[in-house]
């Protein structure tokens, strides 16, 4: 699971152009959205939805589903581990 979280962090940093960030900078339980988190926005949710489909074969139906799954890196990793088809 630790590997998966790290792998996810690297992919998220790349997909969302989080310049200058490393996996160490992202706390596993920190909220990804909102001002206290990484400050991600609605377009970022959509890119993460694409990321999940592209890399793990998971299809999320709506941006609302996305927001639930992307609450934090830990929540995302759990979801991916449980639902990945790739």
């Amino acid at each position, binding site marked *: 699971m630790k590997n998966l979280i790290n792998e996810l962090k690297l992919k998220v940093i790349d997909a969302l152009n989080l310049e200058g960030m490393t996996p160490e900078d992202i706390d596993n339980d920190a909220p990804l959205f909102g001002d206290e988190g990484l400050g991600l*926005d*609605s*377009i970022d949710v*959509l890119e993460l*939805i*694409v990321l999940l489909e592209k890399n793990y074969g998971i299809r999320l139906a*709506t*941006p609302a589903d996305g927001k639930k799954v992307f609450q934090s890196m830990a929540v995302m990793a759990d979801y991916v581990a449980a639902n990945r088809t790739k």
Partner: protein
Amino acid sequence: MVSAIGCGKADTLKALREKRTGIGPVKYLETSLRDFPVGEVPLSNAELAARTGAPETWPRTTLLSVLALQEALEQASIQSDGKFSPATYKNVESVEGTGLPEASAFLLAKRRPIPSNIPLVSGTTVGGMDLSEKLYPMYSPWHSCGASTDLAAQFLGFKEATTLSTACSSAANAFIYAANLIRCGFADKVVAGGAESLSDYHLNGFNSLMILDPEWCRPFDATRAGLNLGEGAAFLVLETEESALERGAKPLAVLSGWGNACDAFHQTASSQNGEGAFQAMSQALKRAGLKPEDIGYVNAHGTGTPNNDASESTALRRIFGDRIPPVSSTKPYTGHTTSASGSIEAVFCLLALQNGLFPPELNWREADPGCIIPYSGGDVPGPRHILSNAFGFGGNDSSIILSRI
């Protein structure tokens, strides 16, 4: 004009009276996303070419433009006469280091008589993308928005043409631009509007933003889930009162007000309090010298996305308070025709002014407390003034007001 509900004003009026939608499954566009309903013009490129005399190999945006332009020019009894006096800028020197001419000398040189040519101002964003996406990674020589307009312009004898590209507010902005050209004395007649064809490119793009509805769209409805893309073209001839009187032309309406403001919030979403929309509508009313209660009908942008309809409703409530006039979105008839929407919907407004007919909202069932309740039919007084909204990505929000003569 041409849209999913027909070619020409007569067809269009009939469809509005019959409450007939033009939205349905994809028929002509080559795309993998065939599950989404669209507002496709019910003519193939071959048929468009046959009707207009233009080559079938041209971009669909151009073919749609030519079809609409031919109707507009004929109705206005205008033939773009090919006589053109190009702007001459005498002795204009460049201000050191800036790359721009010396402004005051430039302005002095500009005092010239109104040229006899009639400019074309068209709004498009897709341009020749329908050809390029088939050729990619090569590009069609008519890929660019400007090129697709220029083809139509040259075909019809316009010697001066310009293209505006501000996504969904393009055609409304073309009218504003044309009005400014006339006010500044650069022309006394301008043909303005917009055109857009469907493309796999932007159908996929809107899908990646997850704002397409896999069902028929329902603006302002509590269950709305997104928009249906559409295509089409519409153009109007704008001219000064003097010019119209002089040549005995019969104007249909007055463009009495307009406004454009930037929401300055997000590239693809509208702000919660609809600030850009509110500013654009306020400016339009101010310019027209009207109060909100003077507006008899509003043709909303009303795309059917949860975001737009809530934001626009907030802006409408801020403008009109408790006394909101009949409001409807015509996008359930035509789909969201993006760059052409400002002009296609302006024609709907003209038809409303002339015939006392407001397009009733289609496919609306369930009220949303965050949204206005759209007009679904029933007797209302004939409007004197109609407000039409067009809001584009980048927060580019425009409103125009058309008034009875």
